[in-house]
């Protein structure tokens, strides 16, 4: 057992009254008092999350593009201008998901953000796959990362960085650009507008305190999970992993099938799966009555079984929602084994919530 790692913002969390927990080997804030209140703040105002435990990797070299076209299932050729980002799975040969990530086109190559819990195996995998390519990976442990999310997030960041307001406001959705050593991206994991900001580690706490003074509330991992679930966004290791195909995890849209000759890792396996018929699909579940859907609960559909991969109480909707992997034939309803009682739930298309409002029928 090694001691959990601390992000550059650790002292700021403690000073803000955070309850700290071990998450993927990092000592992280789970909440600062009430997870429900923090959730509500992000849906209605602005909150900030320390996501410094995630790993930033800068990719350079003359083969960076062709290497990424092999490494990930989405196609970086789609990135048409500097700063543009895409979301993708990085697959293994069987088509299982090694990790999900974001990659930005930068002036010198690409910048990739990968999950904390998968960092070691991702880097080993990328290193292995780089044999024969002119590609260099630089892991940016010198950066902290703060996600500022909510309808007032951009306005409040601009209020503390007035010199950058114009360029921040000009960012397109899913675009990130540098400003000196900093990097501002209009991305997030909440279903709200906002930014993910990469900061030199020694400047992270002053920035956190400036944002706090401007009315941006610190938000813990607890609310991060309920926000992303309402937004219908996958969590690696729960909604998918190396044993789950992106075709069964709601990630079909992230697979760039064209051009056909682009031979990304996992392509053959996915093509075989498609040809054979994909037996399971990802759906959203809604329980409007009492009770809370939880990860691991069994879903029953016409005698066949599925599983809840993430479930929670939705603070916005005031009832339970879940992400589930269910038989492909699943229609408008299913039953969930809720602590021993088979309970009827609705099957819906995700997301559940976008920009503060319910979106499913």
């Amino acid at each position, binding site marked *: 057992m090694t001691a959990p790692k601390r992000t550059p913002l650790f002292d700021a969390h403690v000073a803000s009254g955070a309850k700290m927990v071990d998450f993927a080997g990092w000592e992280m804030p789970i909440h600062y008092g009430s997870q429900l209140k923090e959730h509500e703040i992000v849906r209605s105002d602005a909150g900030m999350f320390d996501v410094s435990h995630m790993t930033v990797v800068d990719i350079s070299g003359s083969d960076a593009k062709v290497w990424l076209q092999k490494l990930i299932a989405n196609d970086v050729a789609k990135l048409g201008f500097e700063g543009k980002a895409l979301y993708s799975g990085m697959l293994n040969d069987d088509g299982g998901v090694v990790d999900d990530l974001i990659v930005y086109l930068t002036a010198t190559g690409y910048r990739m953000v990968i999950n904390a819990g998968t960092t070691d195996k991702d880097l080993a995998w990328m290193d292995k796959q780089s044999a024969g390519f002119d590609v260099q990976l630089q892991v940016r442990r010198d950066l902290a990362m703060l996600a500022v999310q909510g309808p007032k997030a951009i306005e409040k960041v601009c209020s503390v960085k007035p010199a950058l307001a114009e360029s921040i406001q000009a960012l397109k959705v899913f675009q990130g650009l540098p400003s000196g050593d900093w990097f501002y991206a209009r991305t997030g994991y909440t279903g709200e507008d906002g930014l993910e900001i990469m900061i030199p580690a020694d400047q992270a706490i002053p920035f956190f305190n400036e944002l706090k003074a401007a009315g941006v509330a610190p938000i813990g991992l607890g609310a991060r999970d309920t926000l992303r679930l309402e937004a219908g966004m996958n969590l690696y290791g729960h909604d998918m992993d190396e044993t789950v195909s992106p075709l069964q995890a709601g990630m079909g849209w992230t697979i760039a099938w064209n051009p056909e000759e682009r031979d990304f890792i996992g392509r053959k396996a996915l093509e075989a799966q498609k040809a054979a018929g994909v037996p399971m699909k990802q759906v959203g579940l809604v329980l409007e009555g*009492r*009770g809370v859907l939880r990860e691991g609960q069994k879903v029953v559909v016409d005698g066949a079984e599925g599983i809840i991969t993430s479930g*929670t109480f939705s603070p916005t909707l005031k009832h339970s929602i879940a992400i589930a992997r269910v038989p492909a034939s699943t229609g408008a309803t299913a039953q969930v084994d809720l602590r021993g009682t088979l309970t009827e739930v609705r099957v819906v298309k995700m997301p559940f919530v976008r920009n503060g409002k319910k979106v499913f029928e």
Partner: protein
Amino acid sequence: MSNIPAELKYVSSHEWLRLEADGSVTVGITEHAQELLGDIVFVELPAVGADLAADEQAGVVESVKAASDVYAPIAGEVLAVNAELEANPELANSEPYAAGWFFKIKPANAADLDKLLDAAAYAAEIGA
């Protein structure tokens, strides 16, 4: 530090009991329990009139984080349940020893209360 009122009785599954003047016993969950659970979003209470055995499941409390059973700490008949709590489950977070009570029972045997933990013993149990 968790608040553990001295005048109450406790069980290690984190329920508290208060002997009322009329001989009934009010049951709720402790402040420590609500801290462990986090934001509470649903409670399920027993049926009024139900005869509960000691340690029998009497309800469920669900937080954003987890579901947890609530047990009858002693045997008895359910005299009342807290409808206010069903409508506002967060009362179990904000006022666990007052407005956040769960149910009242008529003890089958009033002496059963004496066997339960006092505040000092419960504090020791949770390492407070």
